[in-house]
């Protein structure tokens, strides 16, 4: 839950001009809704790497891992589990 909140806060602050009215469901695709383009994805990757202390490999740069709040949160969780084991 905490991951999702941090991601949401970052996206609203960075891509939606901090709009308090922004409606962003956990499952909304960033790319399909036009909130983030592929350049923006790089910014998002930099954020999660620094915020959550994970390293995102080239092969992990796929929509399945990064293209919604819930996908990102699940990906971060998987990365944390993998690094802990």
């Amino acid at each position, binding site marked *: 839950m905490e991951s999702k909140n941090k991601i949401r806060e970052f996206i609203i602050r960075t891509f939606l001009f901090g709009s308090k009215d922004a409606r962003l469901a956990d499952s909304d695709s960033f*790319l399909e809704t*036009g909130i983030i*383009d*592929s*350049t*923006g*994805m*790089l*910014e998002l*990757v*930099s954020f999660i790497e620094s915020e959550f202390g994970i390293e995102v490999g*080239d092969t992990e*740069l*796929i*929509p*399945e891992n*990064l293209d919604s709040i819930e996908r990102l949160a699940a990906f971060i969780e998987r990365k944390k589990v993998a690094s802990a084991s």
Partner: protein
Amino acid sequence: MEFTKDILAIDAEKVAGQITDFIRDQVKNYFRRKGIVIGLSGGIDSAVSAALSVRALGSERVHSLLLPERESNPVSREYGLLCAKSLGVACEEVDITKILESHGVYAKRDEIVKKYFPGLASGYKFRIALPQDLLERDRLNVYHLEVLAADGSVLTARLAHDDFLGILATSNIKQRTRMIRLFYEAERRQYAVCGTTNLSEALQGFIVKYGDGGVDMEPIENLYKNQVYQLARYLGVPKEIIERTPSPDTYSYVASDQDVYFCLPYDTVDLILYAMEHGVPKEKVAKVLGLGMEQLERAWRDMAHKHEATEHFRTMPPSPAIGS
């Protein structure tokens, strides 16, 4: 009309005539100028645009420019000269390296590259490129820095957001500097600047705003790349230019348009763009192109995103409606 691989076939003689009439009319009646200035890149688009301009106005009213900089491919100059000679047009060469140096283009770029490869010796070549496996897997368009070191080794690194933007912004100064020079040469002659953008580039936003996109007219902007090739053959563009792999020639390490932007061959890009513009069902497109539905969906999605993201390239700067 049935969607087939030949859907983009044109009557080259007829199209050449239409564009020639357009250029003559625009220069004479709309711009009220005396001729055309055109930059020759050594590529097919500028060669075709120049050939059409000569047909429209005569070679004495077409002034061509070669605008190389220190990272340009020498072939661009060679083929640019070949094009000018074959058309019998005046050709002036202006090296823009010093102007680019004054903007810090090379220094700022070197600074970024050396962040990734700190011990890199001078004399390296570099480019930015996208992964070329667009059809094979779902992935994002994330640019990599690719460096050809002086010892022949190739180094790659994924670019961080700020560094990608930094490289893009410095590189775009090259095209914008060329635009400034073209307009200088045009204005002092009372000529118009002829653009060389084709429809495939325009629809996908593969242009630099106010760079190569900053021109007076775009005679081939309604032709897909495939159709530009058809016109080139009809117009007798030198074989070397027709056979050259399309490249933006922006980076010192040679890269094709496909490497840098499209991730697909032009033939595929053109047919998908046509299908998008004309509402051809995806199933039909996949069948004609010999692609699986999943592959076509990936290409379609990627191209649709590029089109949307660059919509502002194709329109005038927006302004607010003011009511009384």
